[in-house]
C-alpha cells in the first residue's frame, strides 16, 4: 500500500508540483521584469550579460582569500551533486525508464562514490559555515536551513540505499526525493534554474551602463 502510494499517486503529484511550480516561478520572473531602460547605452548589454555569466564562476581577487573555503566547498557540493544526479547508474536508469525514454552512459561505480563523497563533504562544510559564522547565521532564513537539511536527507537516504538489496531503503530515498521536489519551486533551491538568468540580467544592466564589474 505504502509502496503503491509513494511510487504512484504521490510521485505524479510531486512531479506535477515540481514542473508547474518551476514554470510558474520562471514565468513570474520574466513577466515582472522592470521598465524598459530609455537611457543612452554606454556599452553592450549582451556583452555584459555573457561576461557576468562566466566571470562570476571565479571569486573576485580581493575577496578570494577570505572565502576560499566556501568557494571550494561550493564547487565540491554542486559538481558532486550534478554528477550524482545525472550520471549515477541508478539515476540514469530511472530517467530512461520513467521519464525520458532514453539514457546515456553512466559513470563507473568508483566515480559515483567519489562524487557522492565530494557532495557530502561540500554540503557539510557549507551548512556548518552557515551555522557557525555569525553574519551568515543572521542572514539565513528558515527556508535556507530546510533546503540544506532536505538536500542532505535525500543524499543520505540515497547513500543508505546504495546496496540496492532492500526495497524499503529505495522507497525511503524515493519518498525524500518527492518531498524535495514539492519544496523545490518555493525555496532558494530555485537558484538551480535562475542563477544563469540572474547573472545575465545583472550583467546586461552593468554592461549597458558601462560598469566593469
Amino acid at each position: 500500500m505504502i509502496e503503491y502510494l509513494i511510487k504512484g499517486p504521490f510521485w505524479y503529484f510531486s512531479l506535477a508540483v515540481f514542473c508547474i511550480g518551476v514554470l510558474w516561478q520562471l514565468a513570474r520572473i520574466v513577466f515582472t521584469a522592470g521598465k524598459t531602460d530609455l537611457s543612452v547605452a554606454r556599452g553592450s548589454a549582451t556583452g555584459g550579460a555573457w561576461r557576468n555569466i562566466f566571470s562570476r564562476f571565479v571569486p573576485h581577487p580581493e575577496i578570494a582569500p577570505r572565502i576560499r573555503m566556501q568557494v571550494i566547498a561550493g564547487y565540491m557540493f554542486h559538481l558532486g551533486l550534478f554528477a550524482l544526479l545525472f550520471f549515477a547508474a541508478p539515476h540514469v536508469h530511472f530517467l530512461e525508464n520513467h521519464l525520458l525514454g532514453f539514457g546515456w552512459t553512466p559513470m563507473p561505480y568508483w566515480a559515483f562514490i567519489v562524487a557522492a563523497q565530494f557532495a557530502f563533504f561540500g554540503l557539510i562544510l557549507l551548512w556548518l559555515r552557515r551555522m557557525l559564522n555569525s553574519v551568515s547565521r543572521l542572514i539565513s532564513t528558515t527556508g535556507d536551513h530546510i533546503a540544506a537539511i532536505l538536500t542532505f536527507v535525500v543524499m543520505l537516504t540515497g547513500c543508505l540505499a546504495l546496496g540496492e538489496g532492500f526495497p524499503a531503503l529505495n522507497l525511503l530515498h524515493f519518498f525524500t526525493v518527492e518531498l524535495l521536489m514539492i519544496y523545490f519551486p518555493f525555496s532558494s533551491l530555485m537558484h538551480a534554474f535562475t542563477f544563469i538568468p540572474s547573472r545575465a540580467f545583472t550583467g546586461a544592466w552593468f554592461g549597458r551602463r558601462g560598469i566593469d564589474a
Partner: protein
Amino acid sequence: MPVVLLIVLLVLPVANASTPQQHKDYPQGVSSISPGSDLWREVRQRDLPISGITQVQGVESGVLINAEGDRWARFRIENPVRYAPLVLLAVVAILVLFYALRGKVGIEGGLSGRMVKRFTDYERVVHWTLALVFLYLALTGLILLLGRTLLIPLFGHQVFSLLASASKESHNLVGPIFLVSLIMMVFSFARRNIYEKGDLTWLLKGGGFIGKSHVSGGFFNMGEKSWYWMVILIGLAISISGLILVLPNFDQGRVIMAISHVVHVFGAIILIAVSLGHMYMGSIGTEGSIEAMKSGYVDINWVEAHHDRWARQVKENDEVLSVEEFARLHGRKPEPADNAAGQS
C-alpha cells in the same frame, strides 16, 4: 595431491546426500568413516595455511580454507564484540558518577560576559565536520560490530539486515571524509598542540583534580593536547585500516585484512570511549567551555581559570571584548543578563 583433493571434493556432495537415507533405515546409526573427514581435518587443523595450485589468479586463491580466518572470527566474537559494550557502558557510568559527585566544574567569580576570541570560523567548521562525521561513523560502526548480538534480539533479523546494509554502505562512503577532515585538523591545530614547558606539571596534578592549587595552562592544556594527538594518531590508524578493508583490490591478503580489522575496531572503541569524556568536559562538565566551539569566543574568567598563561597574553595584547562589543559582533543588543554578567 591437488587432483586427489579435487576428486574428493567432487564426491563429497554425493556422499552427504546419501546420509539422511541411512539414518531413516537404521535409527541406531551406522558406524562409517566419512572420507571427507580426514580431508577437512587435514585442511583445517594445520597450523600453517596450505596453499595448493590453481588456475585462478589472485591473492591466496590456492588456499582452500584459511584456518587463521576461523581464529580471527572467534577472536572477533570473543573480544571486541563482548568487551566493547562493557567499555562504553563503563565510561558512561564513570561520567554519570563523576557528574553526580562533582557536578559542573564552575568558574570562580562566574562568567564576566567579557569575551576573547579562541577559534576562527574555519577552525570550528573543521572541528564540527570531524565531530559529525565521527559520530555517524561511530553509530554505524557500532551497529555493524554489535548489531548481531544486541539488535537482532530487539528488532529481529529482517530489520537488522536492513540496518546493517544501510550502515555498511554509508559507513564505507563517509569513511574517507573522516580522513580528509582529520588532515584538515592537522593543518589547523597541530602547531598549537605541540607539547611545551609546564605541560608535565598539568599532568602530574591530574589537570587540577589532584590537590587544591591552580594548574597552569597555555592556549591548550596537557589534557587537550593529548586528546588532540590521540584523535590524530588513532584516527589515522582507523582511516588507513579502513581503507585497507574497503579497497580489497590492492592485493592485500586475508591476514592483512584481519589485522586491519582488529586495528580498526580497537582504535574506534578507544576513540569513542575517550570522545565521550571529551564531549562531557566540553559541554555539561565545565562551565563556559561549549561557547568556544559555538561562537568561537570564551569568557575571560574561563580563560583565567583554565588557561592562565594564554590569559596573560590576551590581556597584554588587549584582545578582551566588552559585553557590548561581543553583542554587536553577533548582531544583537546586549541583554540585561549580559550586562549583569559584565558587572559581576
